[in-house]
């Protein structure tokens, strides 16, 4: 089995708080892998470490065969990333955002225009290409951000809550695009989500996190079967492995960030 992402005892402390606790998992090539967990479970911290935004306190990880600490620059060339926040620049047009990404990812000058046009076409943004992004709908912004992250054809695409704040139609469009990646590009997708529906219908395999540790991992079917009764939903699985208690994790900054994203996309 070929793994494109592997972590070994990955750990991150913030002062006395252990946000990620000796986490070991692997993601196969071309699969859609979901990280599930309540607020404060460590999902965003893991994503930040794997995308080289945050160095681990202990442990190691490799992405596309490159060590995230020893070859951070190589990892950055091999990945695409869509943060939870609205990261497309609203003061630029959709096309300008894409051209900027093409330049930052060293796409050769001769190929830039073609790749940008193809991305606009794939994402259904051709007509809106020269409008300022602040005039886009939430779904259009997310599609643009994914197009930016995919422009250099990364080995691994990281998405931090990709459909937060989107209406059901826009959410469905994002899911369909991510599922179509399997047939079009050899790209592996790693995403975090709070939506059980998203995890169930989109992800090939899931890891459920609780207090920075791996509580369970497997396909959605395996996870449902693991808790016993027939007809269990992923929400039952989530409650089972995370204790089913009212969440106490997360912080003011995290919640305000999510609400800001929902407000901007909604």
């Amino acid at each position: 089995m070929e793994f494109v992402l592997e972590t070994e005892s990955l750990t991150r402390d913030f002062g006395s708080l252990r946000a990620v606790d000796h986490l070991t998992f692997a993601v196969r090539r071309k699969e859609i892998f979901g990280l599930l967990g309540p607020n404060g479970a460590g999902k965003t911290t893991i994503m930040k470490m794997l995308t080289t935004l945050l160095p681990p306190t202990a442990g190691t990880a490799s992405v596309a065969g490159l060590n995230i600490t020893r070859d951070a620059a190589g990892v950055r060339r091999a990945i695409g990333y869509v943060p939870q926040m609205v990261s497309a620049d609203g003061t630029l047009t959709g096309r300008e955002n894409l051209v900027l990404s093409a330049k930052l990812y060293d796409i050769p000058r001769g190929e830039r225009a073609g790749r940008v046009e193809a991305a606009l076409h794939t994402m259904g943004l051709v007509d809106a290409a020269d409008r300022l992004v602040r005039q886009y709908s939430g779904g259009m912004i997310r599609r643009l951000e994914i197009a930016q992250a995919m422009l250099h054809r990364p080995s691994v695409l990281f998405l931090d809550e990709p459909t937060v704040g989107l209406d059901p139609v826009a959410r469905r469009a994002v899911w369909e695009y991510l599922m179509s990646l399997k047939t079009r590009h050899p790209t592996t997708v790693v995403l975090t989500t709070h939506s059980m529906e998203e995890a169930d219908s989109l992800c090939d395999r899931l890891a459920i996190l609780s207090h920075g540790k791996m509580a369970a991992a497997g396909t959605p079917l395996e996870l449902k079967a693991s808790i016993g009764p027939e007809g269990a939903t992923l929400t039952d699985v989530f409650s089972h492995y995370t204790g089913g208690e009212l969440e106490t994790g997360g912080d003011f900054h995290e919640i305000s960030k999510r609400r800001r994203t929902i407000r901007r996309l909604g």
Partner: protein
Amino acid sequence: MKSRKGGAPYAVSAEEEPFRPRAFRRKLTRFLSKTLAIVEVDIRKLRHDYMEVITRACQPALWLLVFGGVFGRLRSIPSDDLSYRAFLAPGVLAQSVLFIAIFCGISIIWERDLGIVHKLLVSPTPRSAIVLGKGLAAGIRGLAQCFIIYLVASFLQIPINWSPFTLLGVVMLVVLGAVLFSTFSLGIACIVKTRERFMGIGQLLTMPVFLISNAIYPIAVMPGWMRALARFNPLSYEVDALRALMPVGGTSHFGLGVDFAVLAAVTTLLVIAGSRLYPRVAM
């Protein structure tokens, strides 16, 4: 398993490679093209919404018209052999560049909240290219101010040196000053991380930097302790050089070479420090 307490900065394998001229040239070309890409973003933003340039022009115009007019009549401030307005014009230019640049930090915090910083940091763009690009973008805004101040100065019949050599020198000084102060501001933003704290510290630093410099009065009239501080203030060197180049008959007290050398050295140090601090804003 090797422990990384508190998270040491990342090692980049490319930095450990032996020196190869062709690879170095390729890296340098990429560095410059990415720096220019960051600058281009700001130019495009200004093209989409140029009201910022116009509204920012009011303050320096008021300084020259009102402050320069009143204190020129008082004749209480020694101004070398220049009229007070001619003495003040380079100070007002340096001040407006300082004010534009110092609030770059707040845009870094804003971009962090939007996720733009994360996106830049996850791309294979050297941190120094991002920091230098942001600084040069502040330089572009500074040049827009420079253009307006030259227009106001001409309107007020301040004798301006129009030779291409001096204009080139002024352009270089404006850009250098903008990179210097915007990188300083970026460093503070990366440490304090919140808008509220930055606004407090930004205001706390801006006025002393402006007032303890030769922008509106010469260093010679300051008390001893202030004179000593003014010599450590990069704004004094920027104003000194601008005063030698911008008005007809202007002179430099420190020497143009010293002015440029101090500004270039401080800017280089700040860009290096800013490149190390920049990733902290996303942590």
